[in-house]
């Protein structure tokens, strides 16, 4: 079995468990919806400026909701010492982390889709016309934060305060991704061409590649001991 097949096997297993328990999906989606609703009361949600700061609001919500998803990723392996079993199995550590990132990615995309529906309704933003552009931006950002979440989820899995430590560690590292995400989301929501913001696309692609390669190379060191 190669790395991709092993990663997909891990992701399939995690998603099967998630579909059955809906632990992180329910928590993250309801958190995102509640935050979006609260902000809709706090601001004039139908103001023209919503397209200008909609990206910031959305990515703030996704970042917080993401932490709920990432925390569950490796915590799921703690009961019955499943993590030890996986580490002793003929499964590469890189495949384990990338598989977890793939599961994070899929779960977070669902949370983002649900949030976008709520965002469209409560903020009067018609984003469906830009769904293609937003989809590409969301996919690039979500992969970056998912791989970060998987790596640091693995590092913090045995900490008593992991629910607190994981966000504290990953948010500073997410900053380049989030800045790029906000800029690009605002651009797309304002019906402007992304070609004028290519530097942020490069930031996203570079971040995704760097984080993925680092996760691949350091996986064994991260997971063992």
């Amino acid at each position, binding site marked *: 079995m190669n790395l991709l097949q092993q990663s997909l*096997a891990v992701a399939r297993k995690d998603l099967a468990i998630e579909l*059955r328990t809906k632990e992180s999906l329910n928590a993250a989606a309801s958190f995102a919806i509640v935050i979006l609703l609260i902000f809709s009361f706090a601001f004039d949600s139908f103001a023209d400026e919503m397209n200008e700061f909609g990206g910031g609001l959305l990515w703030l919500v996704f970042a917080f909701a993401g932490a709920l998803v990432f925390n569950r990723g490796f915590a799921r392996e703690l009961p*019955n010492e499943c993590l030890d*079993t996986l580490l*002793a199995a003929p499964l590469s550590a890189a495949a384990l982390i990338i598989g977890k990132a793939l599961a994070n990615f899929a779960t977070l995309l669902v949370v983002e889709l649900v949030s976008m529906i709520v965002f469209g309704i409560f903020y009067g933003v018609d984003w469906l016309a830009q769904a293609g552009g937003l989809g590409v931006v969301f996919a690039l950002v979500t992969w970056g934060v998912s791989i970060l979440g998987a790596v640091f989820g693995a590092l913090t899995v045995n900490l008593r305060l992991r629910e607190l430590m994981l966000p504290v560690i990953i948010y500073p590292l997410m900053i380049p991704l989030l800045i790029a995400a906000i800029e690009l989301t605002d651009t797309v929501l304002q019906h402007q061409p992304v070609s004028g913001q290519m530097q942020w696309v490069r930031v996203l692609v570079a971040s995704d590649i760097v984080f993925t390669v680092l996760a691949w190379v350091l996986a064994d060191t991260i997971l063992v*001991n």
Partner: protein
Amino acid sequence: MTQAIELTEVWKFYGDYAALRDCTLAIQEGSCCALLGRNGAGKTTLLRILAGLTYFQRGAVSLFGEKPRADNARRQLGFLGHGIGVYEDLSARENLHFFASIAGSSNLRSLTDTWLERVGLARVATMPVRQFSRGMRQRLALARTFIHSPRILLLDEPFTSLDDRAIAMLSELLSEARQRGATIVLSTHQLREALAIASHVALVENGRLRYTGERTQEMLDDPALLYRLHTELSPPQ
């Protein structure tokens, strides 16, 4: 005969505490080594090092000439730790399918069915493990450990809290594994069961290997003999 497992002057520290001190051990392919010793002696640490689950500070460890974290080494490994290592929210079939697939086994469907039948879980194959009794979980854990026919089996106190049926099953699986030439290392407090299976014995005390050698008839006749001869502690009751 080939050496399946070799530890050379291995030291393992947790902070300042030396959990393993200068341990040297060679286990031949096809043999069954019982790691004996009291709680905290270092048996689990030794097994975790062999399984590649923890690093050590000094010395060298090899499984068939490979480092424990090498892909080739882990492909040949079956590990059963203190936890059963199966997912509560998956069914027995899904668990076995997953572990067989990451081990690179072929004919997953028939292999999974065979093992479900073998451990008596075929009728509850689609039921989530969280609904299983303790004995059913243990049998599933045994199937998970043996499903890819590993050449090296590392078992940490495998008899502890097993029911009669699981003990019989484990004994049968170990016997079969030995017949096909697998190397077995098991740690245990249960001297009689371990000595009955083992071809070799290693006694660990305070992180040191006090005795390594073949299991003799005298040990079978008097399981506490090892402790009396090689440790400063009184024999277990």
